[in-house]
């Protein structure tokens, strides 16, 4: 029977490819504490859902004895599958095959699955574990990277793009993850940098380890290149799967709703916030007090923690939270936190996720380092992102809403749909201390006891302006609400905003302060 022989031949060929870079290379991969590319895909996707394509693709380079090499799948696995039933496209670089190096056909496989995900309007997950460009393939490798970057940009805001760094990702290769929506890193495994430690040492004389230069912690805490940090690959895969449940397949859809549930957070919402506006608390407690199941999936937890961003659900529907965090740096806005908030606002807007802003900030972080780092252009990103966002936007002012920070945090003036304030809200051009020093400068200076006079004047200003009622009298806020009603009022606001439709003037695109 010849058909049977053909089938056996096919199976043999497939088995050969499944060996990847061979036993030795796989052992090495395991010794580094890493899973293989295929294992990673199988862990992320629903059981039995993975279908692989381009298994028999081979490299085309013939120079430098490359013609004598057999590179299974050319060092990358591509395919489709499902996560909790939702379709996704996926690729995984196979470090066991020529170090996962990127040559022409390797790149073509990646761009093929990228094209597919964009065409089919489903999320793309890319697992990066590669030594970089395949030097033997010369400019073809560079062409490959360029083709990937172009597609990342084309697909940006159309389909969710997720990058998982599970090994080295160096040089030009880092720019694909940087162009995608969410980057996942794992402690001791992920390494990202443009120029590696050895080059830095030779050229600049600076000695630094790979981990200190571009390890997972560095990107999660310092650079802001990573959005999710995990201690192990398996934890990372759970994070990816969880994220997929919060976001839609593409920009024409809404995230799938789940069964509504009540908050389970133990503490009463009205007991979380100290009345003294200068005392800290954890804004995440407020989020947990209002979301379904008190669930909050935080994004960029360790980077610029003075702003908190992430996903939660309200009556089963995904919402994005953008909040000041009084617990860290008093919740000020600065360069990093502005970048963090602005990008997340744009993400939510692109993917039809309503934004809830919880506001409690004293203003911008003072300092030469901030001014010289460009806090003006970074801070402007928040204004731009909010102003441009057409999804439902709701603000709750918990306590402080001072000056430029008040305007930036989704104020009425940037066309927030609803602005609510707790009775503890202080909406003013600055805090009473600073304002009294300016407004009553003369009285304070001329008083017999300036300090006593200052206290009197601070109190006078506080009584008059440090409340939500001046803003309410102008209609800048819609309602002063009792804290325990926050969830109920937010649910109502979301409900009546569900069909929001606005459009601005026609343009090719704006020029955001990147």
């Amino acid at each position, binding site marked *: 029977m010849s058909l049977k022989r053909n089938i056996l031949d096919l199976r043999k060929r497939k088995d050969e490819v499944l060996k990847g870079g061979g036993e030795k290379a796989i052992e090495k991969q395991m010794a580094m504490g890493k899973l293989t590319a295929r294992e990673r895909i199988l862990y992320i996707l629903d059981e039995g859902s993975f279908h692989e394509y381009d298994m028999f693709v081979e490299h085309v380079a013939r120079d430098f004895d490359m013609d004598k090499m057999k590179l299974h799948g050319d060092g990358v696995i591509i395919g489709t599958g499902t996560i909790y039933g939702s379709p996704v496209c996926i690729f995984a670089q196979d470090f066991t095959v020529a170090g996962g190096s990127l040559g022409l056909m390797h790149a073509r496989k990646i761009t093929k699955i990228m094209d597919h995900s964009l065409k089919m309007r489903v999320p793309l997950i890319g697992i990066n574990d590669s030594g970089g460009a395949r030097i033997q393939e010369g400019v073809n490798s560079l062409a490959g990277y360029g083709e990937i970057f172009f597609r990342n940009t084309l697909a940006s805001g159309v389909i969710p793009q997720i990058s998982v760094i599970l090994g080295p990702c160096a040089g030009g290769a880092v720019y694909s993850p940087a162009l995608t929506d969410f980057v996942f890193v794992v402690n001791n495994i992920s390494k990202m940098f443009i120029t590696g430690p050895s080059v830095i040492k030779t050229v600049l004389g600076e000695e630094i380890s790979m981990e200190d230069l571009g390890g997972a912690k560095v990107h999660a805490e310092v650079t802001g290149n990573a959005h999710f940090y995990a201690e192990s690959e398996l934890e990372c895969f759970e994070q990816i799967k969880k994220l997929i449940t919060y976001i839609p397949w593409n920009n024409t859809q809404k995230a799938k709703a789940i069964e509504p549930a009540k908050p389970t957070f133990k503490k009463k919402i009205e007991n979380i916030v100290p009345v003294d506006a*200068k005392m800290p608390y954890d804004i995440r407690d407020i989020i947990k007090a209002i979301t379904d199941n008190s669930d909050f999936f935080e994004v960029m937890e360790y980077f610029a923690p003075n702003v908190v961003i992430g996903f939660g659900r309200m009556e089963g529907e995904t919402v994005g939270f953008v909040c000041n965090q*009084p617990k860290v*740096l*008093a919740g*000020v806005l600065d360069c990093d936190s502005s970048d963090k908030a602005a990008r997340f606002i744009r993400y939510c807007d692109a993917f039809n996720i309503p934004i809830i802003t919880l506001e409690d900030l004293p203003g911008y972080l003072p300092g030469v*380092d901030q001014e*010289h780092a460009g806090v003006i252009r970074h801070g402007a990103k928040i204004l731009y992102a909010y102003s441009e966002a057409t999804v439902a936007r709701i603000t709750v002012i918990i306590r402080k809403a*001072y000056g430029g920070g008040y305007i930036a945090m989704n104020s009425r003036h940037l066309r927030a749909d609803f602005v609510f304030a707790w009775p503890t809200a202080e909406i003013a051009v600055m*805090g009473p201390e*600073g304002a009294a020093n300016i407004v009553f400068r003369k009285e304070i200076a001329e008083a017999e006891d300036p300090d006593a006079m200052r206290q009197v004047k601070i109190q006078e200003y506080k009584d008059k302006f440090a409340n939500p009622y001046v803003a309410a009298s102008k209609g800048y806020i819609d309602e002063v609400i009792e804290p325990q009603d926050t969830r109920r009022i937010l649910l109502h606001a979301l409900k009546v905003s569900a069909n929001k439709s606005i459009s601005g003037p026609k343009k090719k695109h704006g020029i955001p302060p990147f």
Partner: protein
Amino acid sequence: MEEEKFETIIVHSAVYKTEYTEKYRRRIKWEKPDENQLHSFIPGTIIDVFVKPGDKLKEGDPLLILEAMKMHNLVQMPFDGKIATIKVKAGDKIPKGTLMIEIAAK
């Protein structure tokens, strides 16, 4: 009791109790640069030094060559003045920000 753990941030005269981030702790305090001190702007190797202490020089006069990233960078006198001290010699490998030459204060 718990209050003592807090750090403070001052915004518009108000003192807020809060926590610092590692990045905030490590921020570098700004200092006005001393124009009489010439520091290396890049790490590299001193190839040659053309001047000695006491030399009176005009703006633009060559002082030394600092090789970095395979480029010979000519460091010039930033304004008219007298060399006070020279802290480097040919062959020195220096990191970024190293004091190379001091010009006498006017």
